[in-house]
């Protein structure tokens, strides 16, 4: 008798597991396409702040390239680069990097740099900084990140890439200097990386394009 009841319980469990799996599979089929479209739209939308004033015609999110860690960019995880082209000509590169020395965990940053090495925009994608203090770096909360627009490694010179409290050229936030300091440093490191690896960054796709054309 005991064996029969064990088998019966096992079968009930298996049956309910199968029904539940079918339910999840059905919902997945139903939502799959919408979720992919939403994620694509969200990505394009979150890249917008770093694309201001650029002329480009390629789908930005398709030109993605991953730079595996370790690399010279800020952050210890893989960095992501979106290359922006106008026709065949490279226009800008958008880096997704993380500043590791924030107040609470990594700060995910989107750093847009045009082909001449000028910043097209900096945007904080994700952070866990203190609400009301460090979160002024969010573009929805204050204009703080706008001070990077149009800056480059010559403007100010490399030594000036610090917050004012440390003798640099960039404003800190009232009551918060750790977060701005981390972001200024990460943006500077991204610019340095771009200057050293400009060809390599754009070549990865340019190379495959050439092969396809010839």
């Amino acid at each position, binding site marked *: 008798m005991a064996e029969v009841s064990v088998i019966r319980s096992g079968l009930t*469990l298996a049956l309910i597991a199968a029904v*539940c799996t079918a*339910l*999840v599979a059905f919902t997945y089929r139903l*939502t799959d396409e919408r979720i992919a479209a939403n994620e694509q739209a969200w990505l394009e939308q979150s890249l917008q702040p770093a694309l201001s004033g650029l002329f480009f015609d390629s789908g930005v999110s398709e030109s993605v390239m991953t730079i595996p860690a370790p690399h010279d960019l800020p952050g210890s995880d893989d960095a992501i680069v979106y290359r922006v082209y106008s026709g065949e000509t490279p226009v800008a590169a958008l880096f997704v990097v993380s500043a590791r020395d924030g107040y609470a965990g990594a700060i995910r940053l989107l750093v847009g740099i045009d082909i001449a090495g000028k910043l097209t925009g900096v945007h904080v994608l994700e952070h866990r900084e203190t609400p009301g203090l460090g979160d002024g770096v969010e573009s929805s909360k204050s204009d703080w990140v706008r001070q990077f627009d149009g800056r480059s490694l010559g403007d100010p010179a490399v030594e000036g890439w610090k917050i004012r409290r440390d003798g640099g050229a960039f404003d800190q936030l009232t009551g918060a200097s750790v977060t701005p300091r981390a972001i200024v440093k990460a943006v500077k490191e991204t610019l340095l990386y771009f200057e050293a690896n400009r060809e390599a960054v754009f070549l990865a796709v340019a190379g495959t394009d050439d092969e396809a054309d010839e």
Partner: protein
Amino acid sequence: MTRPTLIDRFKTGLWHENPGLVQLLGLCPLLAVTSTFVNGLGLGVATLSVLVVSNALVSATRRLIRSEIRIPIYVLIIASLVTCTELIFKAWFPALDRSLGIFIPLIVTNCAIVARAEVFASRNPVGSSIVDGLVMGTGFALLLMAIGGFRELVSMAWLLALLPPGAFFSLALAIAAKNAIDGRRRHRRAHAQPRRSRLINR
């Protein structure tokens, strides 16, 4: 014992046995996401729908399930429902899904849901279990919205309300307010009427 009316059931879920205020269940998501009204509403609706459907399914299968395997089956049912809810949120409410983040999948650990499955749905017919899910879920959702709205308002003047301590203070205030109202009501009733009617009300 007479059967409780629908209104009585709602009173129970929303007030007398509110999962958050009285049973003190599901406090982890309650404390974590209630920084705004909209977040509270989002998680409240998600929890409510999982609770209603899980109650319905647990109740519908209650004769099939032997008591030794009931817990794994609750876990299976609740986990699948939460996964479906997460997919639905991702597909139709992407912004809400982003701001609630991990707390949608974490509904699976909300003890209020497993508690209702065990205490109510496994012993009552489907219709009644759906009503139970509805009233308990609504009670929980309203509390989430109230605390979310309260913290959002207070944070304009006092930032602490938005930080984790603010969540604890707000919940404590809500529970204290409920107890105060209950206490005053009991006091008034005791003075207005003699004992007999109090016993009947119980």
